[in-house]
């Protein structure tokens, strides 16, 4: 901290109001927000989607979309009001005094331009350097952003970069003109947790040495508290609480902040209460599941023998053929390599891994949506490969159902909610029309949705509500196993916590067994009993949740644990 004695704020946002014109309506996105940032300081703005946090950041850098405008208050940058300044004055500030690291590293680089050229553009536009000097500077900046072999990298195109590397390039661009303030808008939300940690660590170090102030926009309270000195919590366009990061985390005052602190998975995962709650759920679920198993073992119409291990996967391997160097050549790529595990009836096994680890491919093979190259999947004593008859296959479908990741793609937009939930009933010819309707009502009730949504369409529901509908659809046939493929990853933290709770309740009530695929180790503790850690298609570590959290054996698992943001912050309650 080289500016501790500096008492004039770098950025002061006073009573800022930002409105959007939507047709004839005027929507207020930011309502009377106050914010102060000093030189060299990191300030985090935390909130759910739609809370106005990004709008606030965009107002500061003068990048509001055409239908948005500052309708009240002022933004003082170094003492000058920039909210009502002329366009060219803001243009001059942008880049040179205020830098931006945008949210999505995939779409914020022009795919047709070399990465180096794009950074050079930033240098030239801000008059920092020109010609050969600029080329030299580009290489230095990339090195500084932590890209090895920067000279070669500068000549590459964005598609040759991984997501993390692109984000580093964007950071280099944001810092190119040595701004005094860097706005980082969810800079790592699209990245894997371990990459997120690396990048944030690097950003911290870089802004510290350069003395750049950072305005960090994030939805993750844990991450915000870990990285920032000062926190600003936004809710529905207003600042509901602000102050020193640790104070807020340990002693939240506003009910919204309390809610956030109690449900952020990165924080909740270290609480003992969540482990106790999980143990209770498991006890009840295992008991219910045992009753169901006894029924199944005597039933003719159901597949399976009522075994304790309802899904047994042995030496499962999937090899994809990729195009080789020449048209007639192909390269083998082992997406899943010799994976074995057991799912005990009434429990949850989580498969954790970063993108490309093969975890979703495992889920697809267990669901019999993708044939394995070798290895077996046994469902309650039956090998999936031996299920040849149509009736057997339909029975399997009844007893094992998926919930997918993307709430916007997992429901047919042309089907009403009623049609979507009733589809499995229709496909399996269950009951009369009246009975089906009663079942759909019952299912909606189970997932806590009002029955009025029956006639609505997916486009009118939020992501969390759609995910509830997807869960209701999965439960329509009374399955024993539900496979959740990143089922909560796309949701806001509060909604995520709510869906996790729902899944837990349903498990206890119905004795369900879950295979829970996730990239986020933080949610595992709230829902799972056993964990499988995957990396590059292989199982790295496999044991109980408490064992993995308290006593990880592998370095990779430890890395994943360390990367949970805010995991090390001592909590008050």
């Amino acid at each position, binding site marked *: 901290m080289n500016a501790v004695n500096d*008492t004039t*704020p770098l950025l002061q946002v006073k009573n800022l109001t930002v409105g959007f014109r939507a047709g004839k309506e005027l929507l207020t996105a930011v309502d009377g927000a*106050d914010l*102060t940032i*000093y030189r060299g300081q990191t300030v985090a703005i935390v909130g759910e989607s739609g809370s106005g946090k990004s709008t606030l950041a965009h107002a500061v850098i003068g990048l509001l979309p055409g239908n948005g405008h500052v309708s009240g208050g002022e933004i003082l940058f170094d003492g000058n009001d920039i909210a009502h300044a002329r366009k060219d004055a803001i243009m001059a500030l942008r880049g040179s005094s205020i830098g931006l690291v945008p949210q999505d590293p995939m779409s914020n680089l022009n795919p047709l331009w070399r990465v180096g050229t794009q950074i050079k553009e930033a240098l030239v536009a801000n008059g920092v350097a020109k010609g050969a000097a600029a080329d030299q500077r580009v290489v230095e900046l990339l090195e500084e952003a932590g890209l090895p072999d920067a000279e070669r990298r500068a000549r590459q195109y964005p598609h040759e970069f991984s997501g993390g590397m692109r984000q580093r390039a964007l950071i280099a661009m944001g810092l190119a003109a040595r701004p005094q303030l860097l706005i980082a808008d969810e800079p790592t939300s699209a990245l894997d947790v371990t990459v997120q940690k690396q990048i944030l660590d690097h950003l911290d170090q870089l802004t510290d040495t350069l003395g750049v102030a950072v305005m960090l926009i994030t939805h993750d309270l844990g991450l915000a508290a870990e990285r920032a000195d000062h926190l600003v919590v936004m*809710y*529905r366009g*207003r*600042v*509901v*609480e*602000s*102050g*020193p990061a640790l*104070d*807020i985390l340990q002693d939240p*005052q*506003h009910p*919204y902040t309390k*809610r956030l602190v109690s449900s952020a998975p990165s924080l909740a995962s270290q609480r003992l209460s969540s482990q106790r709650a999980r143990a209770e759920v498991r006890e009840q679920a295992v008991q219910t599941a045992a009753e169901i198993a006894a029924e199944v073992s005597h039933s003719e119409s159901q597949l399976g023998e009522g075994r304790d291990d309802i899904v047994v996967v042995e030496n499962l391997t999937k090899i994809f053929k990729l195009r080789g160097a020449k048209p007639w050549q192909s390269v083998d790529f082992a997406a899943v390599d010799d994976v074995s595990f057991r799912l005990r009836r009434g429990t949850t096994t989580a498969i954790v891994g970063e993108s490309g680890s093969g975890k979703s491919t495992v889920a*697809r093979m267990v669901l019999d*949506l993708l044939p394995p190259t070798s290895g077996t999947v046994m469902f309650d004593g039956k090998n999936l490969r031996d299920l040849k008859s149509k009736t057997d*296959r*339909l029975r399997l*479908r*009844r007893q094992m*159902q*998926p919930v*997918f*990741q*993307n709430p*916007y*793609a*997992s*429901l*047919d*937009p*042309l089907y*009403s909610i009623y049609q979507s939930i009733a*589809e*499995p009933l229709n*496909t*399996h010819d269950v009951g009369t029309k009246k009975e089906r309707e009663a079942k759909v009502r019952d299912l909606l009730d189970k997932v806590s*949705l009002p029955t*009025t*949504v029956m*006639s*609505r*369409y997916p*486009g*009118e*529901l*939020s992501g*969390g*509500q759609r995910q509830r509908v*997807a869960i209701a*659809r999965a439960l329509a*046939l009374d399955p024993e196993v539900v496979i959740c493929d990143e089922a909560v990853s796309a949701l806001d933290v509060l*909604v995520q916590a*709510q869906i996790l709770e729902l899944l837990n309740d349903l498990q206890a009530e119905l004795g369900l067994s879950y295979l829970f695929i996730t990239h986020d180790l933080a949610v595992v503790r709230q829902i799972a009993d056993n964990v499988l850690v995957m990396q590059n298609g292989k199982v790295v570590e496999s044991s109980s949740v408490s064992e993995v959290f308290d006593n990880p054996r592998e370095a990779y698992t430890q890395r994943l644990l360390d990367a949970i943001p805010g995991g090390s912050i001592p909590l008050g309650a």
Partner: protein
Amino acid sequence: MSDIRPGQERYVAPIDETPLRAIDAVNVDAVPENQWKEAWKRLRTSVLFWLATGILLVIAAMIFFPSLFTGADPKSADLMNSFSPPSDGHPFGYTQQGADVWARTVHGARASVAVGVLTTIIVAVLGIITGAIAGFYGGIVDTLISRFSDIFFSIPLLLACIVVISVLNNTFPERGFWGSVFVVVAALSLFAWPQITRQMRGAVLEIKNLEFVDAATAIGASKMKNLRRHIVPNALAPVIVASTISLGVFIVAESSLSFLGLGLPANVVSWGNDISAAQSQVRSGQNLQVMFVPAAALAITVLGFILLGEAVREALDPKARKK
């Protein structure tokens, strides 16, 4: 870190200013809407749509009730009336052959629109089926259909039609109104389907990878059922747009063919034939209304269909729909 600087003191907003809402509550009062209902709502407020509908309703009236517009017989010609100026009941005068220009234009709508509508329907059906199969099954089936459609795509539409129609004309020299229309429709359809195939294939490729298709498979729906119930309905929007726009193109193509003397035979009243017959007037520069009236009818009809296509495109554009 303990020193708190001015402006960064602990602040808690009064609770009544931002009362907590239930997490992810459902708006119970909203009215249900699906893609088609929503599209209709947007169409209803579109000026383009009503303009197009207005034009097309007038054209439809011409087709089904020509007597509302003219009392004259389009086929009766009296050389005494050759190029006679407009008179009562004959607002645009007479052609070189002495037939009523307005009557011929009104009655000509039937052939032109019949060709356009029939060709569009056949092309859409062919294109949707081939495109859906190619996109859904992929692999060798896709390669075969795609390459086959590429071959047809690479042949210039009008040129190919000229060849096909001359062959058909020689094979069936005598045919009535519908026979003549059918020949033109068959020739146009034969070479126009690949456009819809491509569009459908692209849409199906995109949709078949969405999660709701996997979800339906996991429920136990068969491949065919999945294709029929989920994939095709979701892929239709861009095809409908392309079809509405191509309708106008087919009407123009028919007129071009007739103008060249290859479309509908001279005994069928059609705009293309009338424009063709009026060629000599362009050279002489006199009696231009003989050319102008059927040409204007053609242009307005095509405009009507293209405006409709544009309005439908706007209404179905996924970007315009709320997320």
